[in-house]
């Protein structure tokens, strides 16, 4: 039996362990510094030509883009009716439908048109005078519109059904993607399987428009997707697959979740 003065005791053990921790923290610092060398910044630090979009998704822009005033947006949107239709369904298949579109996505596209990061002569002229607040309001209005079209007002949507093989290809790409090529399923980002904002829902989108955008992404003509998801994916898709996917969306076949079972 040791006398109490020479026993380390529970307190002693705890204090010694804390001392070990502090000692190794102090000892660890030079090791940490030696093994981590942050990479030097690239030589052209902020290349404007290599920047996909000037939009930075911080707290301010996320809140602004999602909380527009749709009543004010309806007033602003009257100038959009000529091309994009009274109910948000355009008369030409090459012009996108905006009914029910994600507000954050539409806001970003207007900013990109305004800054020239997304190229369109028509849209650049129209988006130029719109302030970010105006764009948020317009986006909120279009987001509110129902995306089930009246046939008489939307001559370009839905399109005729594609043939069976194209449907098969599109179903597989929407539901499963192609893991061998690293192509994720469209539904995982564009819904309804999952949503990676601001990827827009394509359920009520025109065939011509979807096809032209996929092709533009594939060849880099459209390059405003931040961190290159669409350029990467569209380049992996074969032209026939882009065609099939566009036909599938344009024929209003993607309104509900698409399933796929391999044969």
């Amino acid at each position, binding site marked *: 039996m040791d006398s109490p003065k020479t026993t380390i005791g529970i307190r002693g053990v705890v204090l010694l362990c804390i001392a070990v921790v502090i000692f190794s923290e102090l000892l660890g610092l030079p090791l940490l510094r030696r*093994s981590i060398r942050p990479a030097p910044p690239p030589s052209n630090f902020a290349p404007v030509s290599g920047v996909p979009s000037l939009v930075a998704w911080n707290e301010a822009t996320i809140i602004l883009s999602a909380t527009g005033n749709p009543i004010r947006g309806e007033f602003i949107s009257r100038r959009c009716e000529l091309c994009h239709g009274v109910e948000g369904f355009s008369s030409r298949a090459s012009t996108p439908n905006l009914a029910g579109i994600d507000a954050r996505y539409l806001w970003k596209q207007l900013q990109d048109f305004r800054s020239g990061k997304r190229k369109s002569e028509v849209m650049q002229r129209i988006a130029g005078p719109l302030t970010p607040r105006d764009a948020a309001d317009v986006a909120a209005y279009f987001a509110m519109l129902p995306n089930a079209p009246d046939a008489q007002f939307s001559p370009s949507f839905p399109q005729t059904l594609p043939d069976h093989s194209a449907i098969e290809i599109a179903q597989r790409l929407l539901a499963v993607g192609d893991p061998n090529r690293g192509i994720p399923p469209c539904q995982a980002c564009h819904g309804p399987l999952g949503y990676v904002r601001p990827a827009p829902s394509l359920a009520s989108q025109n065939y011509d428009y979807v096809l032209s955008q996929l092709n533009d992404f594939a060849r880099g003509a459209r390059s405003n997707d931040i961190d290159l998801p669409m350029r990467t994916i569209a380049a992996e898709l074969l032209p026939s697959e882009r065609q099939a996917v566009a036909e599938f969306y344009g024929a209003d076949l993607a309104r509900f979740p698409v399933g796929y079972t391999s044969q």
Partner: protein
Amino acid sequence: MHTENFRAALVVVIFSLVYGTLRFSSTLQAAHILDRRDRVDLATLHLHGEFVESNLGAARAADGPVTIHMIAEKYVFVPACVTVPAGVPIRLRITSADSAHGFKIAGSEVKTVPGSVTEIHLRFPAADKYEFYCDEFCGPGHHAMMGRIVAVSENQFQPQNSARGAACGQP
């Protein structure tokens, strides 16, 4: 051997061994994930800094090692395919744009976390295609999230100065 002091000292020794192993194995030559010094701002990742589009891919730094810059996002790795020289030390710096991702490559496990840079040193033994799949569940597209690194012999290696590398070697 049976005194109280001996047992107390044993506890402290065992604790030191366990703690020291954890502490120092996480600082020496391991993938540094949550290091305070290597933070990036998610919102401006594409606007300035080392992960701008023109800096993605493989490049040879002035002071030696080939450095790969990549971004992991839902549900692609960017660039999807990177060309690197085989048999030489390579430094991979990767960050995540949205959620946690990860993959196994060249005998190492890489995990990426949004907001910080993961740096890891690799070495590809042979000139070959190395495919990797995301192994950190990230959503409905996780199963199809694949990237490729193609190792070529050192004299064939061209630094990639474009982020679009769906087929390796194309400008």
